């Protein structure tokens, strides 16, 4: 008997195979109810893994505003004309048909923590035993004078969808010798390497299509926030005549008519002005009635992803106050989703959750149409400190941008989507 068959005979494969029959059928009456709010990288993964790991014993509803999933990762490639938005768009059908998740296209307008109930914009009320909030981020538009109501003229394109298309059209329409100005907010924000990847990909587009154009990278931070040496090499190497990187460039106000930006120590005018606004946890979490850290992020218990002092209310993804060294990335949202799903299954069965959860992050960025770079980190719960910490000696950066990593970056996007939605 080989080891695999040996394990199967022991029922170890119970983690994978036998639930398949049960999971697409309707849950039993009286089954515990979990509602997941938000169908992004975190929420969709939670819904699937709750059904998988409970072998269909938990009734799972996913409430998502949009009819289809659209990926933020890879959306910078759309700006450079290297992908279409369709490539980044996927259906929730398999969550329904294969995993038995009830997917509801609606919006949560109120959370009643005491009564364990959500009110939906269209379809009344929905009760839960546990809820997982994966609301992503909302923008603090009011922190930049003149920005509110002007995302048509000054796109953010920091949530993939119509804004991505809009910014792409603006870039296409840019005059020869024009200026593209990109503002990076102070950390923490969604996707730390994202702005620098965007700078590289837009610069790649400009050097091939509008060679005299310039890109001003106006960073509110005092240095590149992720993959620093690798992005710095791209800015100083292939893009040295295109990208001008200006750290410590806090944005005070914008003028949507003239596309000018007033910075703390400078003033610039652009042909395309792309402001990534300061951000906070999605406003959905305000309904929890708990104080947010720095008024922005939800502090969680890292053994369960429950909001601090709110048992049964789990929060995951970009809305969470990140643990030390942990980025707000789609990959981390996937890992927090599984941490939450595992904990919920255990808690609903009356057992204790994994005492030492481990999370992994691998994040690729393209620097042009073919070459990519990565950062990887491993994070583990530290009981003494009550938080998740990076594992010393693990993780790292690419040695240099490469086509090999470009192929892995493309595969990563396909595969994490399958892990979440297939």
């Amino acid at each position, binding site marked *: 008997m080989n080891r695999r068959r040996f394990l199967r005979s022991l029922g170890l494969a119970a983690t994978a195979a036998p639930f398949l029959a049960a999971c697409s059928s309707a849950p039993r009456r009286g089954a515990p109810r979990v509602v997941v709010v938000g169908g992004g990288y975190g929420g969709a993964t939670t819904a699937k893994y709750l059904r998988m790991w409970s072998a269909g014993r938990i009734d799972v509803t996913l409430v998502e505003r949009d009819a289809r999933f659209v990926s933020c990762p890879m959306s910078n490639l759309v700006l450079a004309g290297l992908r279409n938005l369709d490539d980044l768009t996927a259906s929730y059908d398999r969550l329904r048909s294969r995993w038995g998740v009830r997917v509801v296209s609606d919006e949560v307008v109120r959370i009643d923590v005491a009564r364990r109930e959500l009110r939906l914009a269209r379809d009344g009320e929905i009760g839960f035993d546990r809820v997982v909030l994966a609301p992503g981020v909302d923008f603090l538009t009011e922190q930049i004078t003149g920005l509110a109501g002007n995302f048509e003229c000054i796109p953010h394109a920091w949530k993939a969808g119509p804004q991505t298309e809009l910014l792409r059209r603006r870039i296409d329409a840019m005059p020869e010798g024009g200026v593209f100005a990109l503002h990076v907010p102070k950390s923490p924000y969604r996707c730390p390497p994202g702005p620098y990847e965007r700078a590289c990909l837009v610069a790649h587009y400009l050097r091939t299509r509008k060679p005299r154009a310039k890109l001003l990278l106006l960073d509110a931070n005092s240095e590149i926030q992720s993959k620093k040496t690798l992005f710095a090499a791209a800015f100083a190497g292939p893009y040295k005549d295109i990208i001008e990187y200006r750290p410590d460039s806090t944005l005070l106000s914008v003028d949507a008519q003239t596309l000018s930006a007033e910075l703390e120590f400078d003033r610039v005018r652009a042909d395309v002005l792309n402001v990534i606004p300061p951000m906070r946890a999605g406003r959905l979490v305000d309904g929890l009635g708990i104080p947010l850290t720095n008024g922005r992020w939800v502090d969680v218990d890292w053994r369960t992803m429950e909001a601090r002092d709110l048992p049964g209310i789990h929060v995951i993804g970009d809305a969470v106050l990140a643990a030390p060294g942990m980025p707000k990335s789609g990959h981390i949202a996937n890992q927090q989703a599984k941490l939450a799903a595992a904990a919920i299954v255990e808690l609903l069965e009356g057992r204790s959750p994994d005492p030492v959860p*481990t999370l992994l992050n691998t994040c690729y960025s393209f620097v042009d149409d073919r070459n990519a770079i990565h950062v990887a980190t491993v994070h583990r719960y530290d009981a003494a400190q009550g938080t998740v910490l990076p594992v010393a000696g693990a993780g790292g950066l690419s040695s240099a941008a490469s086509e090999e990593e470009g192929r892995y970056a493309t*595969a*990563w996007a*396909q595969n994490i989507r399958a892990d979440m939605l297939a």
Partner: protein
Amino acid sequence: MTGKSTLAALCLLAGTTHATDPAALQARNLAANCTPCHSADAPEPNAIPRIAGLPADRILQRLRAFRSGEAPATVMHQIVRGYGDEQLALIATLLASSP
């Protein structure tokens, strides 16, 4: 069998007939670290190798070779250093048993 830790992991797992066993749950949770990239549902062909269903000792051997630097890698050598021998053995065993 390739080593003591694999044996140890198997002994741990051998006591279980249900996925409620702490070692089996630990294995399942750790292997879920791998699946964003190495999803069993990933489309083929794929630049990232599929691991699910490969023999456990082959997976473990490979993970160890990444850790020692013997196997060339872009990222795997950095990732495996975040896991101990027992954890790598649990991961290999679980992934081998995945459909």
